[in-house]
């Protein structure tokens, strides 16, 4: 896929995030938008998957460790063809298969339930270990928030994956710099992030702009080619990216746009797509 095509899809994903959270009147747009490119890249370029056969045994796996950004994952899955795009408007509604946080049993394409921060990376490590144990060649990807890595379990999992040289595991940290209570470096600084993963025996790829597809492509290629160690891609992103009034605003971590804000966001995103 060309960079331009990927950008168009990322914009669709962003519109899906806005549709979902607006319809739900709640949810987490900020960290979903910052990861729109990575969701798009994983599901449209990087991973060996088949939307027609979500349980395909040799598929690559994805665990959304920062489970609250489910609106972004759901939008990517919908546009990839796992379920109708129309479903995104049922996010967080009673009876919908789109739960507030990812649920394995409900949603086609979701490889693991998540939402309680810090747990997804352990499960991803388990999946990666599983492949090693029986010589399967699938890869496992997991996306973490930069606030999430304040959780101790993340470092239990990092120690485990590094020690076991799980080079089929790719941990992605969405370093958008903000958590609910404020900038991460004012709440309980996780910095330096890259050095921490290096100390846990990871190969680290630092991405200056995680909202840029060229940089993501290079990072995932490097991860794929790295043998003997898991890779951590630490990518700088903009929280709320693509919606002017949400960008870098901590208040948009877990708040839905109202009708007026929804119109503005959709107008901006449509313009971005046409540009």
């Amino acid at each position: 896929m060309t960079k331009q095509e990927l950008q168009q899809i990322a914009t669709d994903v962003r519109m899906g995030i806005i549709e979902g959270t607006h319809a739900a009147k709640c949810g987490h747009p900020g960290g979903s938008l910052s990861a729109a490119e990575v969701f798009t890249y994983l599901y449209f370029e990087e991973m060996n998957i088949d939307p027609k056969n979500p349980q395909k045994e040799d598929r690559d796996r994805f665990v959304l460790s920062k489970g609250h950004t489910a609106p972004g994952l759901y939008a990517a899955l919908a546009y990839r063809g796992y379920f109708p795009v129309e479903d995104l408007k049922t996010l967080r509604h009673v009876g919908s298969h789109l739960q507030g946080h990812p649920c394995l049993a409900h949603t086609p394409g979701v490889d693991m339930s998540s939402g309680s921060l810090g747990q997804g990376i352990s499960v991803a490590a388990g999946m990666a270990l599983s492949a090693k144990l029986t010589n399967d060649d699938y890869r496992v990807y997991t996306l973490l928030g930069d606030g999430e890595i304040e959780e101790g379990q993340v470092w239990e999992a990092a120690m485990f994956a590094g020690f076991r040289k799980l080079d089929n595991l790719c941990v992605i940290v969405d370093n958008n710099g903000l958590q609910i209570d404020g900038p991460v470096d004012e709440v309980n600084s996780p910095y330096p992030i890259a050095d921490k993963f290096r100390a846990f025996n990871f190969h680290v790829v630092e991405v200056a702009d995680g909202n840029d597809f060229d940089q993501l492509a290079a990072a995932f290629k490097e991860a794929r080619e790295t043998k003997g160690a898991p890779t951590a891609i630490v990518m700088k992103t903009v929280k709320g990216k693509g919606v002017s009034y949400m960008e870098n605003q901590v208040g948009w971590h877990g708040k839905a746009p109202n009708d007026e804000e929804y119109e503005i966001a959709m107008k901006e995103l449509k313009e971005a797509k046409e540009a």
Partner: protein
Amino acid sequence: MAETKAVATRASYGNALVELGNKVDNLYVLDADLAAATQTGIFKKAFPERHIDCGIQECNMVGVAAGLATTGKVPFVSTFAMFAAGRAYEQVRNSVGYPHLNVKIGATHAGISVGEDGASHQCLEDIALMREIPGMVVINPADDVEARAAVEAAYKHEGPVYLRFGRLAVPVINDTPDYKFEIGKGVTLKEGSDVSLIATGLEVNETLQAAEMLEKDGIHAEVINIHTIKPLDEELVVKTASKTKKVVTIEEHSVIGGLGSAVAEVLCEQCPTKMKRIGVYDRFGESGPAKELLHKYELDAEGIYKQVKEFLA
């Protein structure tokens, strides 16, 4: 009196895993630096390629097991009950229970009979914590025979299972040719008409002995072994309560939330019955030899006998 063989159910756990490991190839055992204590060390020796020592990180271990389960492997997570049900509670709830993954939790060193290590290691709350989780099966075997059978049944069951094992060697009471283990099926070990004694785990043997003491006083106690606390054999519980009209539960666990609570929940809705819950009464344990502690906390045959007599008085 003939010498009765005594085996700690944690040893049964390790042995049963090796037996199963010989038969199936998708069984994996995870430990958190306690393979020597949980007795899974023998599995590690027999199947090093299927043993994963996670080091001292129980929360991660449960997550790793969940990951293995999503790919079709059957992981048995082994650690002390305190850390399996306590420390990693939320991982068990959210990474295993909620996605209903096929993870088995082998929790050893449960209850006050851990002994000298004291209250920090004596988990008296695990049954309560685990039976709250939707879809979780909770099994507390009484002896070596039952523990081995429970491990095999847990493997065959599709879905999460919590297995509770003890550190203390306990007499083998189920070594009979017709012994059969079925998840969710209680076992009537002695018929009686005056009172129903419903016990679980190592308390089954103590309760059988207490029932013999009661028999000498002319009290005919019915003794029931509830090895599966969830799903509870409600039919048997109601049947025995209807028969004797008096029910006593006995467990090496807090009286809050365990077997006693489970039985009370059933009876208050289906067959209101006068009840007594014997267990640890809303307090922590302490250090000491296991048998001395069981005596002090009135969880040995003598203590059970005394408490049942008080209840019937």
